[in-house]
């Protein structure tokens, strides 16, 4: 790692901390900076403002940063594996699986709070991801990205249709709960959700770090990777598991957030070049930054109402993506 690149990573981390601080400070209710510091250092349970900071803003800041980092790393891994610049976690059927499971959780077990059905989302994402990996035969060929993408698309369509049929035949409350989850919002999620997400992101991040070197070889192409001595089949399976862990946890916790996992790796590649040992952490940083910024903007733009971060990310991410497409040669295009 050159000194210049180390500087960029440190710079990125500093920016991320600044945005996290901003996320604590900004909201529908104005809270002065000293009060926020007090709330963090010596909380007073009778002070409403302290409660808002500790119970609402701290969890959602952590959630946005964690979920963003997970989506960014997962997107970078998928793009390297499939050698497809458009790959993102949703492609593995993860969004559709999580949505289906959440709907089942609400419909069958009448779960009403997010900490209750986050586990359903996680299981659904994992199951769908596993089915796609098996149908896509990632384990024995590992060389056919199109097959994997097709399996993901096919399963997503089936699960999406089933979810739609369930929702249309269920009471209106189910639809209301689902449409809120679908928007990708950090609102109303407590620290218990972050507690589910954090270990998954940590484990996923460690796995990703271990696989980064091998991803460099695979990104050159399956055959070349094998010639370079990489056991491509094993790397594929491990990488798919990592993507499922990261993206599944993030999706279950905050709902399906598009674009962040697609955009961050492109930005990371433009800044860091082709080395995945740099791209992976940079994608995580950039995606965390993007999701936090989207969440803050959603709180500020529609005051006193809120726009969910997933929606802001999609609406702002689209034009940004088009600018990228027009200005740079994207990988593989």
């Amino acid at each position, binding site marked *: 790692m050159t000194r210049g690149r180390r500087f960029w990573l440190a710079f990125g981390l500093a920016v991320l901390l600044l945005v996290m601080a901003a996320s604590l400070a900004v909201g529908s209710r104005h809270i002065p900076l000293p009060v926020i510091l007090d709330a963090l250092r010596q909380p007073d349970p009778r002070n409403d403002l302290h409660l808002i900071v500790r119970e609402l803003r701290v969890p959602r800041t952590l959630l946005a940063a964690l979920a963003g980092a997970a989506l960014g790393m997962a997107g970078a891994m998928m793009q390297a594996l499939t050698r497809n610049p458009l790959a993102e976690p949703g492609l593995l059927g993860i969004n559709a699986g999580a949505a289906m499971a959440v709907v089942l959780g609400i419909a069958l077990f009448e779960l009403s709070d997010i900490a209750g059905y986050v586990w359903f989302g996680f299981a659904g994402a994992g199951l769908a991801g596993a089915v796609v990996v098996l149908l*896509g035969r990632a384990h024995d060929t590992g060389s*056919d990205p199109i097959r994997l993408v097709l399996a993901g698309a096919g*399963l997503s369509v089936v699960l999406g249709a089933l979810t739609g049929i369930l929702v249309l035949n269920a009471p209106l409350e189910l*639809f209301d709960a689902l449409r809120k989850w679908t928007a990708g919002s950090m609102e109303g999620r407590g620290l218990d959700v972050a507690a589910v997400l954090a270990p998954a992101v940590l484990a996923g991040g460690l796995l990703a770090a271990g696989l980064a070197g091998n991803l460099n070889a695979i990104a050159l192409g399956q055959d070349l990777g094998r010639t370079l001595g990489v056991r491509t089949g094993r790397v594929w399976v491990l990488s798919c598991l990592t993507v499922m862990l990261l993206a599944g946890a993030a999706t279950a916790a905050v709902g399906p957030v598009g674009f962040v996992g697609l955009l961050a790796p492109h930005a990371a590649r433009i800044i860091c070049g082709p080395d995945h040992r740099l791209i992976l952490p940079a994608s995580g940083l950039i995606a965390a930054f993007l999701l936090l910024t989207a969440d803050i903007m959603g709180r500020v733009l529609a005051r006193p109402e809120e726009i969910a971060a997933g929606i802001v990310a999609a609406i702002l991410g689209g034009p940004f993506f088009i600018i990228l497409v027009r200005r740079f040669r994207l990988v593989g295009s």
Partner: protein
Amino acid sequence: MNGSFRALRLGSLSVLFRPRVALICALLFMVLLALAVLLMGTGTMPLPVAELLAILGGTGDNPAAEQIVMRVRLPRLLTGAFVGASLGMAGAMFQSVARNPLGSPDVIGFTTGAATGAIVQIVMFGAGPLATALAAMISGVATAAAVFLLSRKGGSAGGQRLVLVGIGIGATLSGLNTMLVVMGNLDRAMAAQVWLAGSLNMRTWWHVLPANMGFLLIAPIACWHGRRLSLLDMGDDMARQLGVATEKTRLVAVLAAVSLTSVATAAAGPITFVALAAPQLVRRLTRAPEIPMLPAALMGSVLLLAADLLSQRIAGNLVMPIGLTTGLLGGLYILWLLTRTGRR
């Protein structure tokens, strides 16, 4: 080249005539008729074929049956048939232009764009079917135009860039769509969700008319272009030497396909899979080197009416909009194909 053919000449005009394609067309048409009889004759009030014919001929003597046929079943049937035909033909054109069996109007963000217009109408104004259909059509075509303009660089709209820009625009619009559904009043949001599922329920002559007119206007252009499109398969340089204006042909084809899809979406909401599958199935049946437009349209109708029959009669009390039925079948079809094709 597979399949024999003859050229029919009339002065300077010539048309390729393939007996096999004609046979397939006739067969598909018969299946279509059978499906139509089943759809019109069964249901809460079963009607024998003789009575159906009498009602359609204007000599029916049962006013209640006449009401059901003329007000409910016939509009639904015709909407389904024309929507299916439009989607099948649009799929064939898109797949020819993209030279990719997965080429589909959804890819360039078109379906999402059409949905945006419809959701704005439903959620913000609580609009009825006609206004919703119009809005879907206008916003769909506008989306396609935006994708084209934004992907132009140095004079031509590159294939890869077109797809990428389409995905970007599609994502922005789908964010907008979600926002409208989430922030809207619950009842109207549900109505938008029902529209988004794609449905043939409660179709009136106001749905039939635009679908019908759109198809009859655009289909001739599409058929006329089919031949030139198949020449593009040989590569741009070769096609240009044979006197085909490649860029213009592509533009006309995409515009026609976009218009067909937008008319269909306006009439029935977004319906997946028909545009994807109809051309591929027809190609297997006709064994023709290019995707023939007319059989693809017929196959689209057959697929959609079959799915309609399934969601009306098999599903029982379950609410199963046709768009979700086709999605379910289409997804299963893709997965089945994947398990069938061995290791490569």
